[in-house]
C-alpha cells in the first residue's frame, strides 16, 4: 500500500516530521515500511509555459520550440511530443542545457507522466494556467510504501485517513476528519436497495447524482491518485478511487441511465449467470458469488469489479454511487475463484467497517462538487444495513497488561494511548479499564484484551521493555530419539567420507518411472511450481541420481548421502513420512576393472559401521539396478532378535550412469532406529583360552560366501565363539569354475579349556557335515 506523505500531512494538523523520520516512527509503532520513493520531483521546479513557436528539425520527429517560461524567461527546447504546437500552455522544467540533433535545448517540456501527475506519456501536458504559474495543486511528494502483509489485520490502514490517525496518535497531534456527514441528504432516495442476505452484505448505501459532466480530474487529484499508485481515468472514477485511498471505503459509480429499473439487488449469482466486467472479461458465476444486480441481471461483482454494461462513459450524465460493505470471506472467495484481485477486493477481504459507507458518500458529495461542477444529488441516501450491536467493551486490568508486557505502565498512560487511538476508556473499578473499540477496529482486528496489549505496547514502545529471564523450574526436556539417531547416522557417514546433500521433496513423473515408481502411486501437488515437480517423492533415489549426474561433470569420484523423508500416500489420513538414508559412491572406470565392486563393499562396510552384524542378501535386481549387483540389507540389532530387511545395496544400472559406476545404499531409518536403540549389556570376559583353526571350503564360483559361512557355523555347535572369513581363491590346483573359501573358527567354553581332542572333534564334525552337503574341504 502506497501512502502519499502530502496526503497524510493534510490529514494530521501541524505535522512537521520529514518523510524519513515519519517512516521510521510508523515502522516502529504501526506497520512495516518498505521504503520511501520521491514522486513528482520535477514539479518542484516546473512552471506553466506557453509554446510561442515551433520549427521542425529536419530528418527527425522532434521540433525546436521557443517557450515563454515565465520567471525562467524565453527558452529554446527540443521536444519530441506530437502535441507540441504553438499556442498551448505546457509545463517547462529547467533541467539544464544539452545538444539534441545539433540544437541546444535548454530545459524540457514535460509530459504528465514525467511530472508524476498521471501515467499519460503520449505527449506534453496541456495546462489551463497562467504562464509562469506553478502546476496547480501539484507538489513534489514522498511515497511511503507499507508492506501489505503487515496491515492484513488492519482494515482502517488501507486508507490514508487510517494511517493519519496512527501518525496523529504517535505524535500527539490532531487528526482532521475529511468526511462531512452533514452533507448527507436523508430525503427519500431516488433508488431502492434490496439486500437478500445481510450477512453477505451488511450494508449498502447509494446515492443518485445528475448533471454529471465526464472529464479529466483536476491535476491535484490526479497527482494524489498517482502517488497512491492508482491510475487516473476520469473525474467520476477518479473520485471513487480517491475516497477509497483516503477512507479505505471502496466505491463504485454506475451510469444510472444504464441501470434497468429503480432497484438495486444484492444477491447471490444464479448458477451459470454470465457477467461481463469492466476489464472486458466475461465471467461465469455461481451462487457463491455475490452480485449487484438490476432487474435484468448482474451489474457488478460485489466488492470485486463493476460491470461493463453500466460503466461510466463520456455520455454519462447521471450516476448511481455505491458505497457498500461486504462480508470479507465472501469477497475473498469470489476474488480467488475468478483469479481477480482488485483494489476493492483487497480492502473488503480485510473486513471493512460498515459505518464507513456513508462517510464515503459524504466525502464523495464534497469531491464531486469540485470534479464535476454543477452536479447535484437526486433524492436522499439509500441505506440498507444489518443492525450490528456494538461489541461489548473489553475488560483490561492494568496489572495484567503489565505482566504481559513485562514492564510497568501507569494507568494514565494506558488511558492516554487508547484514547489517542479513539478507543473509549472507562475505569469501572480501580486498576481495571473498560475499553470500547471504535467501529473501524472492531470488525476483526480488536476483540480481546490481548489485542490491547499490542496497542499499548507499540505506543509505549517495545524498545522500552528490558529483557528478563523467566522464573521456571529447571527440568530435563524430553528427548527426541529419532532425531538423535539421525544425527548419529550423519556423523557415521560423514566420518566415512560422505558429504551430505539436501534434495527437494518434489520429483517428476519421468524420474519416478526411471526408478520403477508408478506416478499414480504418488501424492500429487495440485498446484506445482512446474510440471516436473508435481509428485512428492516416494524415494530419495531420483534426487541422488541427479546429484550423481551433476557432480560427475566435475569429479572423478565422490561420496554423498542424504537423509530425507519418503512420502507415501495412505488409504486414509495423512501420508506416511518415512525417513530414509541414501548414500552413493561414484567412481570413473579409470579406477581399474578389478576395483569395480570396491564401492559396493565400501558402502557395505559403512552400513556395518551403523549396523554391526548387518548382512547383505543378494536379491533379484530391479530394472534400475545392475542385474548382478543388488542385495537386501538385513539387520537384527541386538542378538536374539529376528533379522529384518532394512535397506538395499546395489549398483545403479549402467544405463543410468553415463560414465563410471555408482554404488548406492538405501536404508529405512525408521526400521533401523528401534533396532539400534538396544543398550549394551556386559558379559564377563572368558577366563579360559579359546582355540582357533582354519578351514577352506571348495565350492562353485557363484556360491555365496555367506551361505558357506552359515553352513560351516551350523555344524560347529554351541562351542563356536566366532567364525571369520579369511580369503577366497580360485585358480590351480582348483578346477575351472571353482573357488576355495577359507574361514577361521574360534571355539571355546566359558567353563574350561577345550582339550585338543574336543577341538579336533568339532573340526571333524564340520568337515563331515560339509561333505554331507557335497562340499570338499581343503584342510
Amino acid at each position: 500500500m502506497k501512502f502519499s506523505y502530502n496526503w497524510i500531512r493534510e490529514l494530521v494538523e501541524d505535522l512537521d516530521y520529514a518523510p524519513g523520520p515519519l517512516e521510521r516512527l510508523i515502522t516502529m509503532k504501526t506497520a512495516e515500511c518498505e521504503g520511501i520513493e520521491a514522486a513528482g520531483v520535477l514539479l518542484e521546479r516546473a512552471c506553466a509555459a506557453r509554446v510561442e513557436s515551433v520549427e521542425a528539425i529536419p530528418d527527425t520527429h522532434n521540433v525546436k520550440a521557443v517557450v515563454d517560461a515565465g520567471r525562467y524567461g524565453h527558452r529554446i527546447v527540443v521536444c519530441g511530443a506530437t502535441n507540441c504546437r504553438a499556442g498551448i500552455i505546457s509545463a517547462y522544467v529547467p533541467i539544464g542545457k544539452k545538444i539534441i540533433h545539433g540544437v541546444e535545448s535548454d530545459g524540457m517540456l514535460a509530459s504528465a507522466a514525467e511530472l508524476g501527475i498521471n501515467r499519460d506519456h503520449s505527449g506534453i501536458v496541456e495546462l489551463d494556467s497562467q504562464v509562469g504559474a506553478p502546476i496547480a495543486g501539484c507538489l513534489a511528494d514522498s511515497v511511503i510504501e507499507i508492506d501489505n502483509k503487515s496491515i492484513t489485520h488492519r482494515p482502517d490502514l488501507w486508507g490514508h485517513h487510517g494511517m493519519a490517525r496512527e501518525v496523529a496518535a504517535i505524535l500527539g497531534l490532531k487528526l482532521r476528519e475529511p468526511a462531512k456527514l452533514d452533507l448527507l441528504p436523508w430525503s427519500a432516495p431516488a433508488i431502492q436497495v434490496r439486500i437478500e442476505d445481510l450477512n453477505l452484505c451488511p450494508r449498502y448505501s447509494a446515492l443518485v447524482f445528475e448533471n454529471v459532466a465526464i472529464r479529466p480530474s483536476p491535476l491535484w487529484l490526479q497527482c494524489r491518485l498517482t502517488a497512491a499508485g492508482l491510475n487516473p481515468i476520469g473525474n467520476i472514477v477518479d473520485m471513487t478511487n480517491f475516497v477509497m485511498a483516503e477512507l479505505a471505503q471502496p466505491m463504485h459509480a454506475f451510469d444510472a441511465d444504464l441501470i434497468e429499473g429503480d432497484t438495486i439487488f444484492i444477491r447471490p449469482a444464479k448458477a451459470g449467470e454470465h457477467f461481463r466486467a469492466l476489464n472486458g472479461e466475461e465471467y461465469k458465476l455461481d451462487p457463491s458469488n455475490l452480485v449487484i444486480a438490476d432487474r435484468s441481471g448482474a451489474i457488478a461483482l460485489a466488492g470485486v469489479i463493476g460491470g461493463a454494461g453500466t460503466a461510466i462513459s463520456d455520455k454519462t450524465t447521471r450516476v448511481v454511487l455505491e458505497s457498500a460493505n461486504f462480508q470479507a470471506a465472501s469477497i475473498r472467495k469470489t476474488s480467488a475463484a475468478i483469479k481477480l484481485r482488485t483494489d476493492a477486493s483487497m480492502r473488503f477481504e480485510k473486513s471493512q467497517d460498515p459505518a464507513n459507507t456513508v462517510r464515503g458518500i459524504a466525502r464523495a458529495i464534497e469531491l464531486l462538487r469540485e470534479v464535476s461542477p454543477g452536479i447535484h444529488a437526486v433524492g436522499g441516501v439509500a441505506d440498507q444495513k444489518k443492525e450490528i450491536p456494538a461489541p461489548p467493551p473489553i475488560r483490561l486490568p492494568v496489572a495484567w497488561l503489565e505482566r504481559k508486557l513485562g514492564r510497568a505502565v501507569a494507568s494514565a498512560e494506558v488511558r492516554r494511548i487508547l484514547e489517542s487511538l479513539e478507543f473509549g476508556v472507562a475505569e469501572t473499578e480501580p486498576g481495571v479499564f473498560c475499553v470500547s473499540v471504535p467501529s473501524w477496529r472492531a470488525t476483526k482486528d480488536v476483540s480481546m484484551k490481548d489485542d490491547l496489549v499490542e496497542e499499548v505496547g507499540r505506543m509505549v514502545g517495545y524498545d522500552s521493555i528490558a529483557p528478563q529471564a523467566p522464573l521456571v523450574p529447571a527440568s530435563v526436556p524430553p528427548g527426541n530419539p529419532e532425531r538423535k539417531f539421525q544425527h548419529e547416522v550423519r556423523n557415521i557417514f560423514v566420518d566415512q567420507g560422505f558429504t551430505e546433500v539436501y534434495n527437494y521433496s518434489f520429483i517428476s513423473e519421468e524420474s519416478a518411472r526411471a526408478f520403477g515408481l508408478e506416478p499414480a502411486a504418488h501424492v500429487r501437488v495440485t498446484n506445482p511450481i512446474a510440471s516436473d515437480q508435481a509428485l512428492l517423492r516416494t524415494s530419495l533415489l531420483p534426487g541422488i541420481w541427479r546429484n550423481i549426474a551433476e557432480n560427475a561433470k566435475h569429479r572423478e569420484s565422490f561420496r554423498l548421502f542424504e537423509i530425507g523423508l519418503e512420502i507415501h500416500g495412505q488409504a486414509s489420513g495423512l501420508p506416511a513420512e518415512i525417513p530414509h538414508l541414501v548414500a552413493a559412491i561414484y567412481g570413473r572406470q579409470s579406477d581399474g576393472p578389478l576395483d569395480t565392486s570396491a564401492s559396493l563393499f565400501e558402502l557395505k562396510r559403512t552400513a556395518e559401521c551403523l549396523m554391526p552384524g548387518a548382512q547383505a542378501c543378494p536379491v533379484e535386481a530391479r530394472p534400475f539396478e545392475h542385474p548382478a549387483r543388488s542385495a537386501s540389507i538385513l539387520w537384527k540389532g541386538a542378538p536374539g532378535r529376528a533379522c529384518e530387511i532394512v535397506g538395499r545395496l546395489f549398483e545403479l544400472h549402467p544405463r543410468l550412469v553415463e560414465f563410471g559406476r555408482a554404488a548406492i545404499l538405501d536404508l529405512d531409518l525408521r526400521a533401523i532406529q528401534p533396532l539400534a536403540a538396544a543398550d549394551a549389556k556386559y558379559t564377563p570376559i572368558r577366563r579360559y583360552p579359546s582355540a582357533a583353526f582354519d578351514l577352506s571350503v571348495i565350492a562353485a564360483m557363484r556360491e555365496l560366501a555367506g551361505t558357506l559361512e552359515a553352513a560351516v557355523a551350523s555344524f560347529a555347535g554351541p562351542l563356536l565363539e566366532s567364525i571369520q572369513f579369511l580369503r577366497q581363491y580360485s585358480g590351480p590346483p582348483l578346477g575351472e569354475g571353482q573357488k576355495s573359501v577359507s574361514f577361521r573358527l574360534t571355539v571355546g567354553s566359558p567353563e574350561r579349556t577345550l582339550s585338543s581332542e574336543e577341538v579336533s572333534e568339532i573340526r571333524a564334525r564340520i568337515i563331515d557335515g560339509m561333505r554331507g552337503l557335497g562340499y570338499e574341504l581343503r584342510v
Partner: protein
Amino acid sequence: MLDESIQELESRSLARIASAKSPEELEAVRVDALGRKSGLTQFSREMGKLAPEERSRIGKLLNSAKQKLEEALEVKKQQFAEAALRARLDAEWVDLTLPAPGPRRGHLHPITRIQRELEELFVSLGFTVLDGPEVETEYYNFDALNIPAEHPARDMQDTFWLDGGNLLRTHTSPVQVHGMERLGPPLRMIAPGRAFRNESVDASHEHTFYQLEGMMVDREVSVAHLLYFMKTLLTAIFKREVTVRLRPGYFPFVEPGFELDIQCLICGGPGCAVCKQSGWVELLPCGLVNPNVLRMSGIDPEEWGGFAFGLGLTRLVMMRYGIDDIRHLQGGDLRFLEQF
C-alpha cells in the same frame, strides 16, 4: 707347552672374531674355538693327563680363555644384530609426504550444522526438540493457528496443495499445535524442519526452506521473557553481543505479534548495503501466543500464556556463511557443500 697353545688359540680366535665379516663367519669361529671339536675342548680333554696342581692352573687358564672368547663373540654378535636392524630399518624408509589413502571426512550440510547448533543450544535452555509431518492438514497448518479459511493471512503463505485436500506445511508452526496437544503446558519446545511455499525460485527465494519454530508456554510469560530468550539465542548464534528490537508485525497465531530485528552485524548501525541503509536486519517473527491458539489446543489462556517465534534457518545459514544464492542449498553441488 699347553700354556702357549691355549694362549695362541685364544689370541688367534680373538683376532678372527674381530675380523669376522658376517654372522656366519662368526659362527665358524665359535665352532672352531668353542665347539665340541674345537681346540679348547681338545685341551680340556687333555687335562686329565696333567698333575693335579698343573690341572688347576691350566683349568683356570682354559676358563679364562673360554670366557674371553664368549664375551668377544657376544659383543660381535650384537654388533652384527644392530647393523642388521639398522640396515632393515633404513630399507623401510617411506615418503611421508605421499597422501594417505582412503576417503577424507565428508561434510555435513550447512543447514544441518546450524540446525544442530541451535538444537543443542535450546536443549541446554530446557527446550525439547519436536518433529511434525511435512504433509499437514489444513487444520494444523492454518485453522489451529488462528488462520481460518478465507482469512486474508492465508495469502501471506502461498500454499502447495495436495490431492486429497492436504497441503505441504507452509511453516513449522503446526508443530506448536502438535506440541501443545501432545505435551500440554508447561512447555518449552523447538521444531526445526522443512517448509514449503509456492514461490518461484531465484537467488533469494526458494519454494523449499528451513525454519526453526520455538514456543514456550507457562504460567507467566511476557514480552520481556521473549526478548530475553531471543537475545540469548542470537548472542549464542552470532557469538557476539547483539542488539535486538521489536516492532509490530502481524501473524494471526500471536497477539501481540512482532518482527524482531537485529542491529546490522556488518555496519553496526549507521547503515550499509546489507541492511539497506537502515542499520537493522529483519530476522524473525515472534509474539505472545494468541489465546485462540492456546484454546484450540486445549490450554486455558486465562491460566497459561506463551511466546512463539519462527526463525528462518535457511536465511540464518546464508547470513552466517555469507551465501549469496539460496539455490546452492538444495543444489547438491559438492563444490559448494565441501566448503562446510
